């Protein structure tokens, strides 16, 4: 079970593993795709420079599913990671789990980082949109994706988040230094007093996941936090809206892979159209092809208003619903996945399973709100409330492992 695409055997001290979605000038970046196999970037992602300047050592590039849109890396051109018991896990989560890195940096493009951390009993933060630079990350769903941090402890997540958070001129969606500073571990915050359970989303998960939620609820209550259920029917439509927006943005973002300027080029062509079509057809996997075609259709003249435009309006409705919830609650508690473990049989039986699992991860993706995974479950908070969420997480260390 090879976890790395490239491992830095010389890494010492505080080691950070990078998902192979993060560009590095010293190691190739393939993003799990045949299209980018062997691709060398001319520059480092901003997060990589911040980490190395901060004294951290890059442990290597961890395998990811093709462009990180799948469930748990099962679509990687370089092979999925299956543990001895047959369960799937992402490489970066496993590298941290076995202690080869202090933390993993990922691109939470479609919920994979959070899902893996929940299954592996780890802490993961998907920070507020715009607080960590996306410069040098492979673009997938630009309006909602975020750089994530996964570690075995809350302290490690906080330490690494402190290093990578901050304004970056090179990222047009980067927020001001003042806003970014709200995430720093020394910033003032209010501990959570009241947490809402997203009822229908939780009810749709398997019993094993529901009992995790119950366990977490009782620990939180024992810590003096009030936990109650809310009607979350509006939040549950985030999935369908996000599936549209994510696919549409993905479709545009991957149009750059054409076999001309870099990446894979087919040997089978005579005309330019054959070059484009055969390069993309031979290099892309089935889930990616499906996502591209679906995204393209949502942007077509016939469907733009019905699908893409509708998705953008639903996004506002969900943002407003969260704002309403946060008038009375400090965080929303929900599962990060429908099951406690997945095998290759699950992803073979439903190749598009990630689209279904977005029920749990899309609410934070589509709104750009921060999400923290701890105790095997997920918490979503208001923008810049990472410290509140991580404080909740600190009460759950040891739960859900």
């Amino acid at each position, binding site marked *: 079970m090879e976890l790395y695409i490239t491992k830095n055997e010389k890494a010492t001290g505080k080691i950070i593993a990078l998902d192979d979605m993060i560009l590095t000038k010293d190691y190739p970046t393939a993003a799990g795709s045949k299209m980018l196999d062997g*691709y*060398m970037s*001319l*520059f480092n992602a901003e997060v990589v420079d911040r980490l190395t300047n901060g004294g951290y050592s890059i442990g290597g590039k961890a395998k990811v599913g093709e462009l990180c849109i799948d469930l748990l890396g099962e679509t990687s051109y370089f092979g999925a990671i299956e543990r001895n018991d047959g369960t799937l896990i992402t490489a970066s989560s496993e590298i941290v789990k076995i202690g080869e890195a202090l933390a993993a940096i990922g691109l939470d493009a479609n919920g994979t980082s959070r899902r893996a951390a929940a299954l592996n009993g780890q802490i993961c933060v998907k920070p507020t*949109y*715009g607080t960590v630079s996306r410069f040098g990350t492979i673009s997938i769903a630009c*309006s*909602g994706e975020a750089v994530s941090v996964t570690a075995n402890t809350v302290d490690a997540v906080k330490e690494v988040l402190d290093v990578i958070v901050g304004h970056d*001129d090179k990222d*047009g*969606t980067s*927020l001001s230094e003042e806003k970014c500073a709200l995430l720093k571990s020394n910033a003032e915050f209010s501990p959570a007093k009241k947490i809402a359970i997203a009822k229908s989303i939780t009810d749709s998960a398997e019993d094993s996941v529901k009992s995790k939620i119950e366990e977490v609820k009782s620990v939180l209550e024992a810590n003096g936090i009030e936990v109650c259920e809310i009607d979350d029917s*509006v939040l549950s*439509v985030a*999935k*369908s809206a996000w*599936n*549209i927006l994510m696919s549409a943005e993905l*479709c545009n973002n991957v149009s750059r892979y*054409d*076999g*001309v*300027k*870099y*990446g*894979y*080029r087919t040997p089978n*062509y*005579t*005309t*330019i159209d*054959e*070059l484009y*079509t055969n390069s*993309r*057809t031979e290099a*892309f996997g*089935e889930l990616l*092809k*499906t996502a*591209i*075609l*679906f995204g*393209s*259709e949502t942007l077509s003249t016939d469907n733009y208003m*019905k*699908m893409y435009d*509708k998705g*953008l*309006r*639903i*996004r*506002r*409705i969900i*943002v407003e619903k969260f704002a309403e919830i946060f008038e009375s609650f400090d965080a929303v508690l929900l599962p990060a996945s429908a099951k406690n473990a997945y095998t290759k049989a699950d992803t073979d039986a439903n190749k*598009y399973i990630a*689209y279904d699992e977005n029920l749990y991860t899309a609410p934070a993706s*589509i709104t*750009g709100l921060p999400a923290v995974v701890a105790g095997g479950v997920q918490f979503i908070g208001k*923008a810049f409330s990472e410290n509140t969420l991580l404080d909740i997480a600190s009460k759950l260390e040891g739960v859900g492992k």
Partner: protein
Amino acid sequence: MDREILRRLEKLNQLQLTEQEKEAFLAFYAKQENEMDVLNSINTDETERMVHVMPILTVVREDKVIKKYSREDLQKGAPETTEGYWQVPRLVE
């Protein structure tokens, strides 16, 4: 969604699906269409589109080169180049 629309989509996106992939796509698409019914049950007539989740306006900066890369470096990853140009098949007969 029918096979003709799918054929146009494939052409537009420079992709070709196998027969099996086409079947799977059509089933996938039908499922997504069903989910549209849920979205359509929510009235959004009075709701503005939300393109950016953060109040960020178009960010502009002075139009100057900050970091320069050589043509050689930029073409290092190219599948095929000729005399400093990307090589593609003849476009015009």
